[in-house]
Structure formats: structure tokens, C-alpha cells
């Protein structure tokens, strides 16, 4: 028997917990960011090791270090950043947090429908569409007034959605009925649906708008759909529980993450076939904890970032050679990712630690953690 018992906490001092405890104590404790924050000329404020403790509890003494580091960073920070607005859906907070990407701080929190997860912006950034799963609706948030102005029709429990490149059609996965539903944005009407596999989830539209991809979590396929004919043109088997899909901006590759399989599948959307799979290996971390979810690929198609869920890391991948360059330690249970439009920063929504990690894309460092609402899930950044 080779079992060790470690980390058994005293009952009066519950530690913040990771996997298996989506109702952890994090909301009851003072916020204590746990991952590295660095800025030029300053030592790393937290270790970036890979021992077993990283994915679990963390020490409150980092709070002081992080605060010091924050002050120093603020004092020395000179690179001007554009003030974009990022919107974070808080799954258990029933709210959306707005972040100013220049100040790197939350500027507003808006109450929205219940269990908000997938978020998307319209073309000019004036409207935010929010999948409010427990309200069976896609809510429309006016990004100027920060008021919910209405809702789009959807099936029950919408989770993720994708907009056509012209911004006219929303494609939403309708998990209970194994359908992809099409919604006309202007008329706010359903204009069709497409039967797919069991538990449709991930959605993406090719840059030319002609190919829609939907991933079905229990069927374990990427369904490629012709947006003109609304017919499935190919079904590609990927690993267990595919959750998210992302095209390269030139449309040459489609990346699909499999949460339970622990891999990312690279699909050739022209030949409609699987090219290769990327798997992840983090020392001292069990394979089960590595659960790829969100994917972001830089505009030039050279680098990709993949959120690894309860592994609390974002993998940095050379998107040409598909080699993993680095693992960045972020908050706990990292779900979705979004670049600022200038690709200076990548924001990560960290479910269990109730924060957003800010990755500096040039230096590949985690530079800040921003407290947001309860269980942040989706993230999107406005174009201007």
C-alpha cells in the first residue's frame, strides 16, 4: 500500500479546496490570490513549482507578498495599455463583472440571470449576450448602460454560443434536446435548428462564416456543419467530453478541447479530418486533474493558450509545432480565456478561486489576479 495522508486540516481552519468542491470555502475567506505575479525587476512573489500542494491549498502569507508586489508593479509599470472592457460571467454570483484592462481592476458588477456562463459580444461591442442557463434564456446586456434590455429565445439551459462573423446569427447549443439552435439577432427569432450528438456544447464559426462546429459532450464528436445548407458535413471523433472549439484566424486549423480525455484535437477543416492530438503532462499532477477547456490562439496563429481546469494552469503551446512551451500557474479551476484586442493580455476566468488571472502575452508571465464575483466562468473583451 503506497498511500500517504497529507494536508489533513484542523476542523476549525478549513482550507480552500480544489477539485471536488465547487462549493468550497473561498467565498467565506478573505481573498488570497495564490499565483505568481511578477513585474520587471522584481522577484516572483510566489513560487511556480509543480509540487502537489500547488493545485490545492495555498498560504495566506502570499497575500502580503502579492500586495507588496502589486504596489511595486503599479509604481514601475510604464507600458501604456488600452482601456478595453472585459466582461466576466460569474456562474454562482448570477452577475457579470466588468474589468478595465488598463487599470486591471473590476469597475462594475451587474446582476444578471441565473447561472450565467457563455458570453459573447456583438460586432460593435454594444451588446453582450449572456447564456443564463437556469433562466433558460440568452440575456442581452447593453454595454453602455449596463442594463439587461431583453432576451433572445433559446432552448432550455443554454451554455455556450457563437456569433456569425457578420454578427447576424447566433448559434447556441441546446443541451437537453441535442440540437444546435440558430437565432436571428436583429429579429430576436429562432430561425432553425440542427440535430447533433448528445449534449452539444462547444460552438465556433470559421472566420469565413461558412463552417460551424459543434462539439457534443457525450457523443464525443466535433460536428462540422455547413452554415448555408445547415447540414452536417462531417463528424469527427475526438476524446472524451469535448467542451470548446476554436478556429485559427486564417481558418487553417480547428482546435477542440476534450475535458475528460485530457487532450486537444487539431482538425483540418478543409480536409475535414483529425490531424493530431496534443496531450499534457505536468510533473507531480495526476492525469485526471488535467482537463483542457478554454482555448485562445493569437491572431498570427503562432501561439495557443489552453486552460487546464482543475490543474490550475494555462498551457502555452507553439501553435505551429504544437510543442508545449510552458505551463502558467493561474487561479483554481480555470475555465475560459480571452485576449485583449491588442493581444497584450490574456484574461483567464478561474472558477474556484473567484478571480481573473492576467497573463502578459509577450513575457508569458501571470502579472495580476483580479477578484471578481462567485465562480467566474466565461470571459470576453470588447473590441474598443
Amino acid at each position, binding site marked *: *500500500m*503506497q*498511500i*500517504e*495522508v*497529507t*494536508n*489533513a*486540516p*484542523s*476542523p476549525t481552519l478549513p482550507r480552500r*479546496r*480544489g*477539485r*471536488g*468542491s*465547487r462549493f468550497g470555502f473561498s467565498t467565506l475567506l478573505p481573498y488570497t490570490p495564490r499565483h505568481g505575479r511578477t513585474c520587471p525587476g522584481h522577484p516572483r512573489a510566489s513560487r511556480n513549482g509543480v509540487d*502537489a500542494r500547488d493545485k*490545492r*491549498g495555498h498560504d495566506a502569507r502570499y497575500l502580503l507578498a502579492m500586495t507588496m508586489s502589486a504596489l511595486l508593479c503599479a509604481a514601475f509599470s510604464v507600458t501604456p495599455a488600452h482601456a478595453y472592457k472585459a466582461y466576466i460571467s460569474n456562474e454562482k454570483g448570477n452577475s457579470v463583472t466588468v474589468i478595465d484592462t488598463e487599470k486591471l481592476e473590476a469597475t462594475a458588477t451587474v446582476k444578471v440571470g441565473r447561472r450565467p456562463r457563455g458570453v459573447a459580444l456583438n460586432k460593435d461591442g454594444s451588446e453582450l449576450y449572456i447564456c443564463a442557463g437556469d433562466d433558460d434564456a440568452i440575456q442581452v446586456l447593453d454595454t453602455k448602460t449596463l442594463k439587461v434590455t431583453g432576451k433572445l429565445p433559446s432552448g432550455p*439551459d443554454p451554455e455556450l454560443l457563437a456569433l456569425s462573423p457578420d454578427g447576424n446569427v447566433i448559434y447556441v447549443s441546446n*443541451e*437537453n434536446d*441535442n440540437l444546435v439552435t440558430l437565432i436571428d439577432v436583429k429579429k430576436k427569432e429562432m430561425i432553425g435548428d440542427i*440535430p447533433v*450528438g*448528445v*449534449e452539444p456544447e462547444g460552438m465556433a464559426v470559421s472566420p469565413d462564416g461558412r463552417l460551424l462546429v459543434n462539439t*457534443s*459532450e*457525450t*457523443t*464525443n*464528436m466535433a*460536428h462540422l456543419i455547413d452554415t448555408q445548407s445547415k*447540414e*452536417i*458535413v*462531417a*463528424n*469527427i*471523433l475526438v*476524446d*472524451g*467530453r469535448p467542451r470548446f472549439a476554436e478556429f485559427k484566424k486564417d481558418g487553417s486549423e480547428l482546435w477542440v478541447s476534450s*475535458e*475528460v*480525455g*485530457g487532450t486537444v484535437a487539431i482538425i483540418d477543416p478543409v480536409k*475535414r*479530418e483529425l490531424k493530431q492530438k496534443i496531450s499534457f503532462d505536468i510533473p507531480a499532477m*495526476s*492525469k*485526471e*486533474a488535467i*482537463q483542457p477547456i478554454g482555448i485562445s490562439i493569437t491572431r498570427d496563429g503562432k501561439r495557443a493558450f489552453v486552460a487546464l481546469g*482543475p490543474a490550475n494552469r494555462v498551457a502555452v503551446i507553439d501553435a505551429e509545432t504544437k510543442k508545449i512551451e510552458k505551463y502558467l500557474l493561474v487561479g483554481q479551476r480555470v475555465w475560459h480565456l480571452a485576449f485583449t484586442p491588442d493581444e497584450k493580455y490574456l484574461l483567464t476566468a478561474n472558477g474556484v478561486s473567484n478571480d481573473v488571472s492576467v497573463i502578459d502575452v509577450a513575457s508569458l508571465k501571470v502579472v495580476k489576479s483580479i477578484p471578481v464575483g462567485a465562480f467566474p466562468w466565461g470571459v470576453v473583451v470588447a473590441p474598443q
Partner: protein
Amino acid sequence: MKSLVAAVCLLLLASPLAAEALNVKVGVLRETHSRETLSILDIPAADDTLAGVLLGAADNNTTGKFTNQSFEATDVRLEEGDDVIAALDSLIEKGALFIIADLSPERLLAAAERAKPKGALLFNVSATDDRLREADCRANVIHVAPTRSMLADGLAQYLVWKQWRRWLLFKGSHPRDELLAQALRASARKFGAKIVEERVYEDTGGGRRSDSGSVQTQRQIPMLTQNAPTYDALIAADESDVFANYLPYRSWDPRPVAGSAGLMPTNWAPAHEQWGALQLQNRFIQTFRRLMNSRDNAAWLAMRMIGEAATRTASNDPEKLRLYMLDKDFSIAAFKGVRLTLRPWNLQLRQPILLSDGRMVVSVSPQEGFLHQVSELDTLGVDEPETKCRLK
């Protein structure tokens, strides 16, 4: 109509998965479970276990639309005294070489023996007996249900994490109650808990229902639990469902109850909703108008394993599917937060154990801090170095 046919053909041509039509026949062998339960909420429905199989088949058939595979289930329900061999033969005759078995250990072993020369593969979805994965393990039986030792370890890890290390063990008088008590004793040793005293609740027979029965129970349970050494948790081993559900709120000392009542380790709970489980619960409730229990879930999962292996291997040959499931690349998603895989040495499915109080999922084991060199899921149950299983 013609154009529709053409469109379908195009679709099939376009799909790399399109293949010759493949039909996978699955047989269900299930025993009638006792309706003698303390809580009427636990009385099994007529489609107990079967409902899980049917939902799994429906899920597989949705996928099958794209792979040109179809799945069908044939159900045989065994009453007491019915011959399991005859039932199995009838299923195999119909071409069902995958058998989802909700059987007692004796019947399961008999069926496995009979199935061997016929090349049929069995999936155990209810028997928790460790011996079926140890001395009595069989190469043609895949165990989807967890063992007693996995369940007991899942509970013990949580109790130790809570620092509730002193247990008063209260067990029933039937052989399977003793088997559960054995598993709990082993878990206590393994994880550093202490059983301060053991007591036995004698089953004197009689029914579970009576008008105003609670009046007597309220006086009886405090007496049976008084004068105990200091303890942190009252642990019940009562698989026969004779007394454990009487313990919460009635014990002499105000202590939490766990095991067969109170905080219960299980492979599935109707209140489980994390990791997308809500979707499965919704599908089940919509179709069968009742809640999914642990047998239904194991049966659904067995069907999904068959479906997953058939999809990946494009085959309905039991031996091919068995080998695929044993491959290190095989894993199955089951709404438990992690991938599930098979222990190659005894064909037991590795899985997290839910701890439910009947209303909520309180926690999920393995608990943090219980480490293992292969998989943290192998901190639950008998591990490879200790196994007595020699597959044959």
C-alpha cells in the same frame, strides 16, 4: 424523397466514420430487489436498472446516427428461484453478447462461467462484493459498480479529513452486513480511524411498516446506543436495511451517522448535479418520471462503455471491445469530474465515490491529500499490490 436519400448518402460519404451498419445487441439480466426498505423513498421501481440501460442505449443511438451503429437492449427479469443459466442462454441465442448484470454474486459467477465458452462479456452493475474482484474475479466480467472497500474508503477518507476518527460501529446481523463491517474495519486501519466499540443489531424479522412505528423506534434507538465509549461518528453497516435509517437524530449521544444511513458513500445520488450531471439527471427524469438511483447509473454507464468502445473500434465483437476498454487510452466520462478507467488487474472501474445524505452530495472522495503513485482513484479499494485476483 429521392433528393433526401441522395443527401443522406452524401452525408455518409462525407463522414470519415461512415461505415457499414453495425448493430450491437445488449442483454439485461436483473434480479428483483427487495421492496422491504425502511424508507419508502428507496422502494425500487419496476424499471429499476433497466431505465439506466435504456437511457444509455438512447444516448448511444444518437451517436450511432453519425457512425451508422445501432444499439438495442433485451430485458430479462429474474424472480427468486429462476434459472440464471436459462435466462442467459435465451439472451445469447438472440445474439446479445454484452450482458448488463444486476445479479447476486452467486448468480453472477454462474452466468460468467456459462458465458465464457460463448464469448459473452458481462458488466456487473450492482454487486459490491470484493471477492468478485479478488479471489473470484473473472476475465469476462467488468465491474462498473464500486466495491464495498471502495465505498468504505471513500467514506473513511472524508471522516478522517473531518477529524472524526473515533467510530462506534453498529452492524446488522446478516452476512452482507458483516461484509460491509469488514470493509469499514479495513478502511479504519488504512486511514487511521479507530473503532471504539462494535454493536450488533439483531434482525428479529418482521415488516418495515406499521402505523405509529416511530413511537417505539424513538425509545428503542437511544437505549441501543447508550453507554458507548467516547466516539465521533456512529457508523452503520446495514445493507439489509433493517435499522440504519432509524439511527439519525435518535442516538443516545448527539453524533453524526454515516455508512448505511446519514452520510452514505455511493456511486450515484439523485441529487448529484456537478460536472454536467444535471443534464443526465434531467434526461433521466424526463424519460422515466423518477429519480436515477445508483443501479440505474451503473447500468447507464455500462451501456455508455459499450457504446464508446463500439464507436472507437467500429466493432461489436466482445473480445475486441474488452481489449479496447483495457487499453491505457480508454477512458469514459461519467459526470464525476474526472475520467474513469479500468483497473487492468481485476476489471474494476476506477471512480470517485459520492458522499450523500440523501438530499445533497456533501463531498466527493478521494479527498485531497490522499495521494497515490498511479491514480488518486486507486486510494479507494483494494489496490494492485494487495490483489488476489488472477484473471482467467
